[in-house]
């Protein structure tokens, strides 16, 4: 925790009481999960599949510009739905309670180059457990960026606006590399590890299938529309990548989000864990359509508190969670997408340079200094 710990006004007892209140919110939704929720996810999955088929059908005639536009837009939306509202949430086990083997975290595979089981490990187990803990949560800058003053600066970080832009464009590959922990595993000794090699082969197979579908088979089926369909699938993947990258940056990078020191989570209680999730996440405000297209990660705070509640329930949960933020006098970080994206990018640029020695007045981020816990 930092010197200007925004939770310093809470007593240990209050933190545990907060935890109990959050548990109650969770229990209420779990007791109420049922037919309507099941119908919701089935409807979304069915709509996604129909949209994808229709868009790919239209793209068979992508040589005609209106068909290209409609098909590309439809396919982009379909891919975003697949990754965000469906894939991410199914893989979190949000729908496991239905016990439908076709919609279950252990059987689901998504339109993404990272195989779902590898993503589940790095995302569900590491990121969600160690959210925003420096040195433990690799989502903090994905190992290529510095997103907090407390992370050590290296000349490599000078290029991070460029790294971040490239990561946005090829986000699914970035995630696959990240799930493989390439940075760590490419060292000479680890490269030969059979477990790593098996995982790398699985990623290779997944990439091959995805590339074949989007960049070979679909364009070939389009006949004379080959080049335009190729451009369309590439564009749809690009749109999906930039969109999901933006949404995800908004979850933990905007100004106001807190990071935590490794030692601060030793012996963490349930209440403290909840509190870390509350302080370490940020929401995106907007319309229902916006929430849907972000896979309800616009309710990032609620998602981090209750990663396995069905995504369609986050909106109603958010009202209660926000009331708790007010009750306990905590800052609920939220804002419209452009503002949050700007804020996150601003941080990426700012922290590409080393910390200034003298903190400027009025910018609390720079006043931070680590305190031993």
């Amino acid at each position, binding site marked *: 925790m930092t010197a200007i710990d925004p939770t310093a006004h809470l007593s240990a007892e209050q933190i545990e009481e907060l935890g109990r209140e959050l548990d109650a919110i969770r229990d209420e939704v779990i007791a109420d*999960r*049922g*037919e*309507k*929720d*099941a*119908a919701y996810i089935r409807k979304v999955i*069915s709509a996604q*599949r*129909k949209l994808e*088929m229709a868009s790919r059908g239209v793209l068979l005639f992508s040589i005609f510009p209106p068909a290209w536009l409609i098909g590309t837009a439809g396919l982009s939306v379909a891919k975003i739905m697949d990754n965000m509202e469906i894939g991410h949430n199914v893989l979190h*086990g949000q729908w*496991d*309670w*239905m*016990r*439908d*083997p*076709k919609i*279950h*975290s*252990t*059987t689901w*595979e*998504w*339109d*993404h180059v990272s195989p779902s089981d590898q993503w*589940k490990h790095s995302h569900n*187990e590491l990121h969600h457990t160690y959210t925003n803990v420096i040195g433990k949560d690799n989502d903090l800058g994905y190992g290529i960026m510095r997103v907090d003053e407390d992370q050590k600066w290296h000349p490599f970080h000078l290029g991070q606006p460029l790294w971040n832009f490239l990561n946005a464009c090829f986000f699914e590959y970035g995630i696959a590399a990240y799930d493989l922990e390439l940075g760590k595993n490419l060292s000479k000794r680890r490269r030969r590890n059979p477990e790593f090699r098996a995982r790398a082969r699985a990623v290779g197979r*997944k990439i091959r*299938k*995805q590339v*074949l*579908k989007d960049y070979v*088979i*679909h364009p070939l*089926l389009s006949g004379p529309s080959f080049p335009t369909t190729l451009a369309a699938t590439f564009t749809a993947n690009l749109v999906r990548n930039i969109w999901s990258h933006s949404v995800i940056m908004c979850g933990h990078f905007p100004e106001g989000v807190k990071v935590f020191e490794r030692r601060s989570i030793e012996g963490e209680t349930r209440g403290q864990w909840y509190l870390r999730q509350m302080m370490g996440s940020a929401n995106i405000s907007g319309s229902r359509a916006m929430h849907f297209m972000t896979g309800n990660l616009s309710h990032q705070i609620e998602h981090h508190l209750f990663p396995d509640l069905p995504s369609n329930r986050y909106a109603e949960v958010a009202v209660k969670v926000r009331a708790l933020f007010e009750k306990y006098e905590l800052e609920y970080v939220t804002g419209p997408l452009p503002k949050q994206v700007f804020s996150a990018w601003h941080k990426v640029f700012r922290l590409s340079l080393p910390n200034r020695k003298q903190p400027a007045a009025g910018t609390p981020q720079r006043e931070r200094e680590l305190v031993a816990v």
Partner: protein
Amino acid sequence: MVTTPLLPSDYLDLVSPLRAGADLRGRIEAVHPETGDCATVVIRPGRGWRGHTAGQYVRIGVDVDGRRLWRSYSITSPTNRRDGRVTITVKAIPGGKVSNHLVRRAAPGTLIQLDQPAGDFVLPPTKPAKVLYLTAGSGITPVMGMLRDAEFDDAVMVHCAPQPHDVIFRDELHGLVADGKLRLTEVHTGTDGRLDIARLDELVPDWAERETWACGPAGLLDAAEERWSEHGVRERLHTERFRPAVAVVVGDGSGGGEVTFSATGRTVEADGATPLLDVGEEAGVLMPSGCRMGVCFGCVTPLKAGAVRDLRTGEITEAEPGVLIQTCVSAAAGACDIER
């Protein structure tokens, strides 16, 4: 390749869930009430349905409150039904999630999951000369499948139900009696008390000569098995049990532990009395299930680590490579790891 990461069937399922080659499903076409708490469900099975033998049951997976639950029900339709539909007849049992849903809430048009029919409580290929059906309550359902399927020269039925209006298929049974195809004795347990198996001597004097199919509560079947054994004609008695043969829960129910479902990556606390099948289902794990009473082995699952207790016998099974347990009649005996 075209549909990766999905399969073509994922798309075909959107338009044609009952086609050949699809996972076996059925569509509920109608629900007809039989008695106050019992209804017949008419199901159009998918193209992959292989057909049943009279007396068999089918496992069905129904979404109740959004959760998929599997249960077994006897098939009550004849094997040669023209329209290819099959029926099951369901009695709503108190607290029964699936039975109450099917009897009171299921709507025509609903898709359900099916397994191929199973069970060896069936008629033999060659018709026996004299048969006896000994049934109680919803135990009549597999027998009704048999009565509708074949005619017998000499068929006798002894059926127990609390009151006359509780007798499922009563009109149809009386129709068979009127046509001289069946001799029927109704035992109304609400007024007459439970059937004493010794009364068979009086109701059906030649019972020991008859090929007998018995289905009903455990008490009745246990008594029948004993009686038939005493007379040395045990091989003429065929039984079908709907409920566990031995009262579930041995001991005081203590000795539970932490149960890990390693394939799903979930860990939950369980007591020593709750079947692991229920524990897993509650935790959202994809548990295979069947009869839920230790008979059909539809739920067997590898035990990776730890120990479990058989709720019928109290026997402890410890993890070893290749050890399979029946999750529906096993509870945690300390920490254990179930491979699901």
